[in-house]
């Protein structure tokens, strides 16, 4: 089935956060710091205030008070520490930090006036580089070091690999720059048209900040132009729009410039990782040690799940992991597609390939020899696990059998050909979610839940689930999301929307069906006319059921994960070091597939992200200034059409009978896990050069 919101998206009718042109709209443009650490000595807004069309300029000196900024951090927030407080005081915590908001009647005027604001700083020495500061690394509050069996047992194994792997900063860079339009209806009621993956989280954060009740804060986000984790908490542009609107008493729109997207809304932090892995000569793993360093801001601890794949992907009796965070004078990173797992799996799956070579073993055979029948982290049985089928079907489709293992042994004309593979694992779970299903007088069905659709196709999938349960034509079902006033749902992240909200939609429709059955005295109704007639007979304008769904005891007894096997063929030019990915096969176990079209698209997206991570994406900071060098889309390279090869997506499509009633697991991120390693492994196979520092740019291959 094609997307139900397809027509809106191809006609320009889908309204994203910056598309709300409210009457009397005022434009807010942020002025940002040019130093990474220190204090504001003086801000001169005189010239800017005189510029045509300027209504107000907000700085820390005149910003409306935010009561929530005074509260002591509770430790209840999802990121530990003191959130960044916009226009709060004279302190500069990172470069390109917002220091003023210029409000004017047109965008051009606001922009021009912003250029007239001058700021003087008292600069303090900053630290923005990870490696020279590793000794400052500490164990984050939110992550525990892990041990099973003996620590560092790999050192005793007859065959072993011990290497360091690094991944750079990656920036989400959704095509839609982050934007918010805020309007205060009165002193206590605010509405925000927002770019968010979680209207309820945005609502709660705004309530806390301004000391407001739930009914006073409304957040709308019906369409989100990509987010990938970057819209899962409230950021400066939302707060700036809300503060601006309060100050001028008119609706205010703040849209980040592309360079501001680089550091104001989080990013994937750089990592330095050490993996030690050892096996007996037959390929049985003896021990794995995975030590990771990440970076965070000076004011918050953002912890990732970087060592998680290592804990569960393979059966291995001895395993120890550590994770340390280094605070730097940068803004706080945040969840980025496959947050942690993407970087961690690059290290683990590269090391597995190195081990396969050290053993003289086929990489798939090595993985099968260490297949985990249960989750080795906690000995729980899997809710479902089709990883073997992923290896098997992926290898067949890819024609892995043609591979001659010796590096540099395959060629096509001038080009060196390399075939590489890897495995991936990603948590599959669900959170409590509530949905409302309403049978309307015209016999159609309205289903609502405060979830989001940032691209995976939630509008469509929920429509299908509801139509299925009610035996209705999907054309007669409408699903609404992206409004904080709807029944609560978790944010759209962590690949758990279908398992959580899908289950709620399923359950509420079951209840509604039951109600209808009772009303119709046991007569099943399957036609729209039938529903119309029933409601008419009973004199009911509509029939509505609201229901919460959540997991039961299976959460404690079973381990839910999605799995994948990635296969990549690269061609490497021996002279220029150019790497072309020419073929990708992704085989995935994501449980039951609800919509084949949108599911495949999710995997295509993950693969494109994996290509970017492997070959080109790198946020570069000039540490002399603590400032991004490549902060636009010409210098920060994202994959474009010409970079993307044929991609075969194989969905094993076996329902998970334990995790949730609809059999789904989660699909938005798994395709990216391990992917960068598959590319690196293919590059090694082509060239004999093992690149352990992402991205794999030509200079590293020519060296």
């Amino acid at each position, binding site marked *: 089935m*094609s*997307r139900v*919101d*397809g*027509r*809106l*998206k*191809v*006609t*320009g*009718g889908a*309204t*994203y956060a*910056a*598309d709300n*042109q409210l009457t*009397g709209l005022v434009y807010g443009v942020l002025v940002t710091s040019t130093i990474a650490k220190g204090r504001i000595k003086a801000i001169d807004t005189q010239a800017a205030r*005189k*510029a*045509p*069309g*300027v*209504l107000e300029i907000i700085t820390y000196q005149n910003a409306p008070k935010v009561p929530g900024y005074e509260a002591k951090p509770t430790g209840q927030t999802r990121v530990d520490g003191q959130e960044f407080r916009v226009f709060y005081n004279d302190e500069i915590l990172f470069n390109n930090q917002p220091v003023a908001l210029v409000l*004017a*009647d*047109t*965008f*051009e*005027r606001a922009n*021009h006036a912003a250029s007239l604001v001058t700021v003087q700083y008292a600069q303090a020495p900053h630290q923005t580089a990870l490696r020279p500061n590793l000794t400052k690394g500490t164990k984050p509050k939110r992550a525990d070091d892990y041990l099973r069996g003996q620590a560092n047992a790999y050192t005793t194994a007859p065959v072993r690999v011990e290497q360091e792997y690094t991944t750079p900063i990656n920036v*989400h*860079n959704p*095509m*839609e*720059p982050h934007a918010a339009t805020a309007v205060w209806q009165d002193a206590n009621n605010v509405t925000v048209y927002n770019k968010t993956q979680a209207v309820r989280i945005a609502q709660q954060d705004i309530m806390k900040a301004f000391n407001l009740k739930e009914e006073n804060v409304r957040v709308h986000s019906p*369409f*989100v*132009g*990509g*987010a*990938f984790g970057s819209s899962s908490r409230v950021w400066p542009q939302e707060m700036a729009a809300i503060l601006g609107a309060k100050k001028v008493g008119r609706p205010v729109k703040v849209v980040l410039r*592309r360079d501001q997207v680089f550091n104001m809304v989080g990013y994937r932090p750089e990592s330095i990782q050490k993996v030690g892995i050892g096996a007996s000569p037959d390929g049985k793993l003896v021990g794995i040690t995975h030590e990771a360093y990440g970076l965070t801001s000076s004011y918050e601890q953002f912890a990732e799940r970087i060592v998680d794949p290592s804990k569960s992907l393979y059966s291995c009796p001895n395993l120890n992991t550590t994770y340390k965070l280094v605070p730097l004078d940068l803004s706080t990173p945040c969840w980025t597609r496959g947050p942690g797992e993407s970087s961690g799996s690059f290290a683990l799956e590269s090391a597995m390939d190195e081990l396969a070579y050290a053993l003289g073993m086929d990489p798939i055979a090595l993985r099968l020899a260490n297949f985990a029948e249960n989750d080795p982290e906690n000995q729980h049985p899997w809710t479902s696990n089709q990883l073997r089928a992923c290896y098997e079907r992926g290898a067949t489709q890819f024609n892995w059998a043609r591979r001659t293992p010796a590096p540099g042994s395959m060629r096509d004309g001038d080009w060196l050909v390399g075939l590489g593979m890897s495995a991936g694992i990603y948590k599959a779970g669900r959170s409590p979610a509530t949905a409302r299903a309403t049978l309307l007088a015209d016999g159609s069905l309205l289903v609502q839940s405060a979830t989001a659709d940032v*691209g*995976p196709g939630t509008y469509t999938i929920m429509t299908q689930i509801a139509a299925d349960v009610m035996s209705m034509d999907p054309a007669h079902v409408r699903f609404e999301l992206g409004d904080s006033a709807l029944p609560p749902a978790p944010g759209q992240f962590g690949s758990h929307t279908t398992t959580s909200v899908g289950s709620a939609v399923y359950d509420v429709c079951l209840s509604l069906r039951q109600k209808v059955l009772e009303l119709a005295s046991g007569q099943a109704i399957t036609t729209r006319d039938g529903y119309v007639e029933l409601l008419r007979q009973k004199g009911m304008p509509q029939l509505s059921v609201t229901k919460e769904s959540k997991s039961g005891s299976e959460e404690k007894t079973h381990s839910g994960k999605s799995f994948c096997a990635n296969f990549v063929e690269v061609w490497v030019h021996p002279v220029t070091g150019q790497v072309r990915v020419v073929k990708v096969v992704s085989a995935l176990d994501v449980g039951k597939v609800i919509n084949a*079209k*949108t599911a495949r*698209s999710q995997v*295509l*997206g993950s693969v*494109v*992200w994996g290509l970017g991570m492997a070959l080109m994406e790198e946020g570069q900071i000039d540490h002399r200034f603590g400032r991004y060098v490549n902060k*636009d*889309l*010409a210098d920060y390279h*994202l994959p*474009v*059409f*010409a970079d*993307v090869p044929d*991609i075969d997506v194989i969905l094993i499509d076996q329902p998970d009978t334990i995790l949730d009633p609809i059999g789904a697991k989660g699909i938005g991120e798994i395709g990216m896990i391990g992917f960068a390693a598959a590319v690196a492994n293919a590059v090694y196979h082509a060239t004999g050069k093992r690149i352990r520092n992402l991205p794999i740019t030509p200079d590293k291959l020519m060296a």
Partner: protein
Amino acid sequence: MQHNEPDRNNNAGQEARRDFLKQSTLLTALSLTPSVVVQAAEKHLDEKAAAYFEQVTLKLTINGKPYTLSVEPRVTLLDLLRERLNLTGTKKGCDYGQCGACTVHIDGRRTLSCLTFAVMHEGQAVTTIEGLAEAGPQGKLHPVQEAFIRHDGFQCGYCTPGQIMSAIGCLREDRANSPDEIREYMSGNICRCGAYNNIVDAIAEVKKGGQKV
């Protein structure tokens, strides 16, 4: 029928402009400023003079409808469409000509609307994503729009208006003769969701179908 922009309810802005015009030092610094304008400004007869001074008359056609507008020369075509005419289907992804989200057609050719000033298009015909389908919620879609839906050529949908305008350009330029050629001639349009292969399939299908674009 003439289409003019909606009233913008800008009293506060006008007061600020008056303040600005009182800064006669600023204005006299502009050597081209006619003294009559400066005098008018100083005598608070400034609004009309200021409008005359800052704004340029612009006539152009957008999606088949003639518009007569008064715009500042620094307004980009993209901001004119989005912020003044409420044609928000055209998207801003970067504002620097690096992403393709803002692609429109000017006299039938694909153009990045963020990289061109509105006043440069006097007398020209602009087509935006809103101008492709027949009017109304059930109006017939352009073949490329239909192909995008069929092939799931988008996820979040944000790059989509630009992709579709560019895809039509690619077909008209006769640069859609193979998947590789499509990839090359569509590479100015970034899709962070990674819908590339589906877009290639959509364009190839329209090419094969031979429909008029």
